Structure formats: structure tokens, C-alpha cells
């Protein structure tokens, strides 16, 4: 890709002899907000740490804006990192935390003061500059950590699970704030998360990783609506996945004949894509949970357990009662075995 700003080529990362990321290739465009998404242990954090320079790759190169920085020490890379724990300096005031990096640059005092002031303003903490980090709420600490990195005007800003330590309301607020910051500053951001909702809401593009390998790369729309592997589908909410064998699909306790051209791979349905109350198949409702807008049913069918949701505005079905349901082929996603979509 010619417009790559951050570029990882054949990156191999290992802790001692344990290879965590075998061969990573990734191009990030300038001004892009990209998410490294995956379950814990998938290598996303390791990849991020190697970009920051906190971990030396075993082989491969990392370059920013065409300059190879693979061997550049972390303190000379000009990359910002907002730690999951925030990693604020407990012995310094809010002001001094933000001024920390600027003082190391030996900028004039007045300049530092105005930059810190501005930085705190950007994240809405200007009125707290004399406080100690420990006297702040989690959300404020997060902003402070952000401001501390932003005043350094980094080429790339890395964020490690930026929303994971916040409660639901703050998470929404912070999400909007990060998007606004990115729009205003045009800074390139790479963030690591295990939460698909977070990645979908924030990122321009998502890198879905598994066992150190990029499973799928694409826009949130592509990943959500068109996952191309069993792993990706499962990760993005296709909770009913059945393997195809000939003209049947196989569940845990039985099989079902379906009309489909493909002879192998998987068929996957979201819980909301399955109709209940009518249809050719029979099952029994074994449990129901009320989840606000939706009702979540578990249906015991000859095929095995099936998870279905219905809008809670429709009348509920009784637990224990027999129920008809429909696994419509046109609502299923077909996944091939090797991960490529057919």
C-alpha cells in the first residue's frame, strides 16, 4: 500500500523462545484510527509494545513515514502510549505529569506552561492542574494520561484497552471524546481492545487477530456483516454456527438437512436471524432471559441448543413449551473451512 504511514513488515515477536507473533504485516494510513482486536493472548498487546519500542522484534521491520525505526530506542521514537493502567506518576501533580516530557525536551518554561494548559484544556482537566493523580476519578486519570501523551505531539498514539477500566457511562463519553480528538488533531491512532463493540464503534478499520495472526482486516461494516471465518463470525455475534456435511448441517446432538449448494464449511446465524413461532423445525424453549430490548431464548432442538432473540415488544413464549423455528438459508452466513468467503 503506497499510502502506508505506519508499516509493519514480516514482524516476528517472541518472549524468549515463545513466539507470540510469527509474521505480522500491517499498513496503517496517516490519520487513521485502527483497532487491534482479539481475545487475550492473541498478540495484539505485544504488537503494540513493539511499535512503541518497549519490545525488540526478533525479525522484521517497523517504519513510520518511510523511516525504519526498528532499532530506534523507545525514548527517541516520538510515539505516544496511553497505558491500560494509565501509568501516571503518583509523586507528581496533574500539571507536572503533563509537563514531564516537555521538560525533558528542555523547552522554555513559558512555552511548557502554555502547552500544558492547552493540553489539559483539550481533555477538560484545566481546573484540576494542582491535584495529585490519586485524587482523581478513573475517567479523569484516563484523560490525564491522554493529555500527557498528546502534548508531546506524537507521530502515532497507541492506546492499550482505553475504555476497559471505565464504567458504562464514562465509556460512551470517552469514546466520543477519542473520536473528537482524532478528528480535531488528525493524529494516527492504534488501539488495542478485546471488546468487539468498542472496536466497531471507534475504529476506521479493525485488525482481528488470533494466535498472533491477522484473521481478518477491514472496516467495522465488513467485519460485522461479512466475517469470513468461523472465528471472526463467532467473535462478531454469529452465535449459532453449524458445520456442513454433504447436504446436512451438524449440531451437537443431531443433524438437519438443508438446501444449500456448498458441500463444506459452516453456516452461521445471529440469534436475531432465526424466526421462532413458525417454521419447519421443532424444538422446546428451555430458558428465557429478559435483556431490555430483547428476549433471549435457548431452544433445545434435535440439532442441539439454538440461541434466538426476539424484540421484547412482541409477546413472550412460555418456557418448556414446544416451539417451531426457521433456520432460513438466506439469513445465514456461509463460511468456508479455510477462512475464505465463498
Amino acid at each position, binding site marked *: 500500500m503506497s499510502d502506508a504511514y505506519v508499516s509493519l513488515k514480516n514482524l516476528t515477536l517472541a518472549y524468549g523462545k515463545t513466539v507470540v507473533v510469527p509474521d505480522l504485516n500491517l499498513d496503517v494510513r496517516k490519520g487513521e484510527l485502527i483497532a487491534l482486536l482479539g481475545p487475550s493472548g492473541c498478540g495484539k498487546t505485544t504488537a503494540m509494545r513493539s511499535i512503541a519500542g518497549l519490545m525488540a522484534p526478533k525479525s522484521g521491520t517497523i517504519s513510520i513515514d518511510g523511516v525504519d525505526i526498528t532499532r530506534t530506542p*523507545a*525514548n*527517541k521514537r516520538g510515539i505516544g*502510549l496511553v*497505558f491500560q493502567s494509565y501509568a501516571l*506518576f503518583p509523586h507528581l501533580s496533574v500539571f507536572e505529569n503533563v509537563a514531564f*516530557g516537555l521538560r*525533558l525536551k528542555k523547552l522554555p518554561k513559558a512555552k511548557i506552561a502554555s502547552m500544558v494548559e492547552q493540553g489539559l484544556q483539550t481533555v477538560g482537566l484545566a481546573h484540576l492542574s494542582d491535584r495529585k493523580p490519586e485524587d482523581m476519578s478513573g475517567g479523569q486519570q484516563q484523560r490525564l494520561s491522554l493529555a500527557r501523551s498528546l502534548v508531546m505531539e506524537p507521530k502515532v498514539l497507541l492506546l492499550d484497552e482505553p475504555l476497559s477500566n471505565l464504567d458504562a457511562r464514562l465509556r460512551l463519553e470517552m469514546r466520543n471524546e477519542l473520536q473528537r480528538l482524532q478528528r480535531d488533531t488528525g493524529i494516527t491512532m492504534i488501539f488495542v481492545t478485546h471488546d468487539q463493540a468498542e472496536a466497531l464503534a471507534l475504529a476506521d478499520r479493525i485488525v482481528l487477530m488470533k494466535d498472533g495472526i491477522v484473521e481478518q482486516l477491514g472496516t467495522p461494516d465488513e467485519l460485522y456483516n461479512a466475517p469470513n471465518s468461523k472465528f471472526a463470525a463467532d467473535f462478531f455475534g454469529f452465535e449459532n454456527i453449524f458445520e456442513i456435511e454433504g447436504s446436512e448441517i451438524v449440531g451437537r446432538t443431531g443433524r438437519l438437512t438443508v438446501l444449500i449448494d456448498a458441500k463444506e464449511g459452516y453456516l452461521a446465524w445471529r440469534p436475531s436471524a432465526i424466526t421462532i413461532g413458525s417454521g419447519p423445525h421443532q424444538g422446546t424453549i428451555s430458558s428465557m432471559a429478559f435483556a431490555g430490548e430483547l428476549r433471549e431464548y435457548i431452544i433445545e432442538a434435535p440439532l442441539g441448543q439454538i440461541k434466538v432473540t426476539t424484540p421484547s415488544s412482541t409477546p413472550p413464549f412460555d418456557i418448556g413449551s414446544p416451539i417451531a423455528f426457521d433456520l432460513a438459508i438466506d439469513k445465514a452466513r456461509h463460511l468456508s473451512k479455510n477462512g475464505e468467503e465463498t
Partner: protein
Amino acid sequence: MYSKWTTRLIIGLTLTFLIGPFFIIILAGLSDGEFMTFPPDGISLRWYAKVFTVESFRDSFKLSMFLAIFGTIAALILGVPAAYAISRYKIPYGETIKTIVAAPIIVPGIIVGLALLRYLVVPLNFTVTLALFMAHTALILPYAVRVVSSSMNNLRSDMEEAAVLLGCSRLGAFTRVVLPNIQSGVLAAFILGFVTSFNQVPVSLFLSGPGVRTLPIDMLSYMEITYDPSVAALSALLALLSVVIVFMAEKFLGFSRYV
């Protein structure tokens, strides 16, 4: 639970056993009589005053102070980097290094003193003072490493990484971020080291020469020839010195959690 009074009684009796004797020597030193008795024979400060007139005490006090202060500083200079390395790195032969550094805790002091006398002072012409300094440093080192390590372990290493990403060198990250945050641990280690060294007897038993004696050794030999209340007075003064130091340390650092 058992009753409040049983609780109080048990604690009261134990504390009387542990601390009561100090009150007794403080009072015994206040006696006006010629011999050690309790309750004291009248009240005077003359035995407390006498302690300060004993010539040799002044020299031995100076030596003990010197060893306690500089021995502890030397132990910290060696111990802080070691504690840092132990808590942050996976060092090759890490367990061996830890065992070596911790060894002085399990070697009885009297043996150390004798060994250093036989193999450093006599054949290598180390002065007794230098040998004492070495022994005290090695003795305090394990405490310094332990106390500093425990406060280092409470400090997340990502703070240093944050400092480096903001432009610090590794050393800079240590001095600007780690050191300010383990300050009280280092101070606690200093106090613990100081008190340990100052009160140390067995190591110094064999390491003493003409005019070179630590205060506790000097006291021991003074006790052998004196039986007037000045010995009690001196003991009381020493105990008070420790109490004051520990009290201050507890007040400012919450010292007892480091012991």
C-alpha cells in the same frame, strides 16, 4: 469472641513482660545510691551524667555511629540496584545471586567477626575499622534489598515505560520516576539498617582492637567491671535512642510494616 477483659489482660501481661524491663532500667539509673537496686535509692541524675564522662564511650559511640551511617549507605548503594534488578529483570542465575546476598542473615555474627579477623585483618592488613565496615555493610545488605524490593514490587513497571516513551533515558526514568516513589522504602531500609548495625554485638566481638570498639562491646566490658547504676543509665539511654528513632519512623513512614 472472648471477652474484652481477657483480651486486655493478655495483651497487658505480654506488654509488661516485653516492655516493663525498660521502665525498670530507666528508674534504676535514676537511683541516688552507690549500688544497683530497685526500687531506686532516692532520685538523682548523677549516674546518667556519669555516662557522659566516660572517655571510652565517646570514641565507641563515634565508631558505632560511623558504622551505622556509612555501613548502611554502602549497603544501599549496593542494594538498591540489586533490588531493582531482582524485581524488574529475569536475571541469569537470579536465584544464586539472591541466595548469596541473603546469606549474611543466616550466618551467626560471631562467626563473621572471627572469620574477617582471621582472613582479612591478620593476613591482608585490613584495619579493624575497615573489617567492621565490611561486615556491617554485608550484614545490612540483605535487609536493604528486602525492604527496597518490597516497595519496588508495589510500583508498576509501566510507569517507567511511560517515562521512557515521554523521552527519558533508562537512568532518567529511574531517578525521575522510580526513586521518588520508593523514597519511603529506602528511608525505612536506612533506619532498619542503622538500628541493626548500631545494636550489633556478635560481629564486633572479635573485631575490636586498641581504641577501636563499638559502643555495645564497650558497654559489655564496662558492665563486667562496674556495678553501679551508671550501667542501667547507659542501657536506658541507648534504649531511648532506639525508641525515639523508631517512633519518628513509625510516625512518618508507618515503619512497622517494613520490619
